[in-house]
């Protein structure tokens, strides 16, 4: 885990410029087409994400956002076009380098937090080894849940449960961490806390993140780049660079302007 972290470009260096993504993208999506029976969900999506970059994908319901993540994470075996992670097609094991935080926490409710986070450990790591236990403990601390290692999911609030899911994703030490509307079920205040927390973790670890959301404010506040999916079937409508230094002010005029730009691209 640490060796990979060292190799990562710091998030500040991987700037929001589209140009950096073209250099040597961690995630490369070319002309992705995906259909379910008679319904075409995605029709020619292109996307390149650079190492350490934070990309948000926004779009209305039914535009194929979640389908995109399912393809990237290897949960959909059948699709057209090319999707590669670290240069390996997701159908040939490329998806092994992808971690995912689902919309719901999806925790094992019979297991304690330690065991839940350990689910994310790579297959060749023995979860009972001292090093692995230490790593899991560190991650629980990283997501701000120290003291809860032996608790069970039913003792946690929604926000805390979602952070366990984040720790599980980080334990996997993925090349790309996918987040599928992870904050959509949370109340406003908890949501803001969780967003800041995610930024802290991302900045500290330099993990490449692709966040799917329908919340334009969230996308603009968090991401280096906002990809607007739209239409039915889904295609990339626009890409908006968020060239604003962090820490950002949610109500800052430039963010508000970018929010308007994204909203306009959504056709609203």
């Amino acid at each position, binding site marked *: 885990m640490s060796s990979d972290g060292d190799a990562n470009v710091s998030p500040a260096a991987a700037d929001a410029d589209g140009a950096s993504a073209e250099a040597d993208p961690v995630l490369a999506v070319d002309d992705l087409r995906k259909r379910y029976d008679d319904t075409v969900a995605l029709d020619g999506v292109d996307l390149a994400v650079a190492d350490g970059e934070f990309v948000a994908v926004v779009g209305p319901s039914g535009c194929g956002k979640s389908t995109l993540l399912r393809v990237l*994470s*290897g*949960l959909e075996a059948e699709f057209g076009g090319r999707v590669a992670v670290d240069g390996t097609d997701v159908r040939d094991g490329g*998806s*092994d380098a*992808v*971690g*995912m935080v*689902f919309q*719901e926490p*999806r925790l*094992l409710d*019979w*297991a304690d937090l330690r*065991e839940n986070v350990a*689910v*994310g450990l*790579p*297959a060749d790591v023995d979860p009972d080894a001292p090093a692995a236990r230490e790593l899991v403990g560190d991650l629980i601390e990283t*997501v*701000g*849940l120290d*003291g809860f290692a032996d608790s*069970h999911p039913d003792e946690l*609030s929604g*926000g*805390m449960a979602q*952070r366990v899911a984040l720790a*599980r994703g980080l334990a*996997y030490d993925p090349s790309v961490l996918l987040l599928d509307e992870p904050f959509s079920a949370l109340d406003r*205040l*908890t949501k803001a*806390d*969780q967003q800041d*927390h995610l930024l802290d973790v991302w900045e500290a670890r330099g993990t490449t993140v692709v966040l799917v959301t329908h919340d334009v404010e969230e996308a603009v506040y968090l991401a280096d780049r906002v990809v607007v999916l739209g239409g039915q079937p889904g295609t990339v409508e626009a890409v908006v660079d968020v060239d604003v230094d962090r820490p950002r002010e949610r109500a800052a005029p430039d963010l508000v302007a970018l929010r308007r730009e994204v909203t306009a691209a959504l056709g609203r």
Partner: protein
Amino acid sequence: MAADTRRESDVSRDSDSGRGSATDGSTRGAESHGLGPVPLPAARRFRPLLGLLVPAALVGVWHLSVATGVFPAYQLPTPLRVAETLYGLAASGELWGHVAITVQRVVLGAGLGIVVGILFGTATGLSRTASDLLDPLLQSLKNIPSLAWVPLFLLWFGIGETAKVLLIAVGAFFPVYLNLSTGIAAVDEELLEVAEVYDLGRVESLRRVVFPAALPDLLVGIRGGVGLAWMFVVAAELIAASQGVGFLLSDGRTLARPDIIVGSILLFAFLGNCSDLAVKEVRDRVVGR
């Protein structure tokens, strides 16, 4: 996220200050009373005993109806007579032999049925093909009444222990099989996706996700299976046995001793209840936290 941890520490600080103020007698102590352990109201502690009220009344009615001649004593003995008979059997040592062999049959039969039930339930729960092949057959076999198997098992395995243990195993098998098979097939698709995304692999996802998720169903099945094992042991012992509580029961009929019959029935009720409570206890420990 800070909000959550803050809330936790607030709670602990509250209880700390509560304890402190109780000793120094400050006004804030009043709040802490609500947080302290409240002794159970006396009435609630005796609540479980309410369940004994109706059986006790029934025993009273039973005694009265025999004593006043509503039922002749050769058909229904008094409760006291039944107790005396059981005590006599126990004191002479005869009872323990019957109880021991019956319990042994139930343990062996239920054990075998549970093991085979787990094997088949796992196979059909995991594999669509195994389910398509085996499930229709097993679903129809489960409808055969226990007594219908007895002549066939006697023919195949003689009147020894094998026939009885196998018969009981058949009884215990079906609830285990049905519950586990459904439980495994019904494991949350969302959790299986988690296992897939994090590349747990076949064995690990079975060990860490599928089996723990299906464990409550398995335990429900085991509880049902043990219950059926007691039904099947009676069927086996009534017809072909020279020892056991079921034999005692039929012996009571041959000897025209209603006290032995009623005593054996009560013995079955008691033993069945004990095993059910034991399984329930195991289930509560494993599943309920």
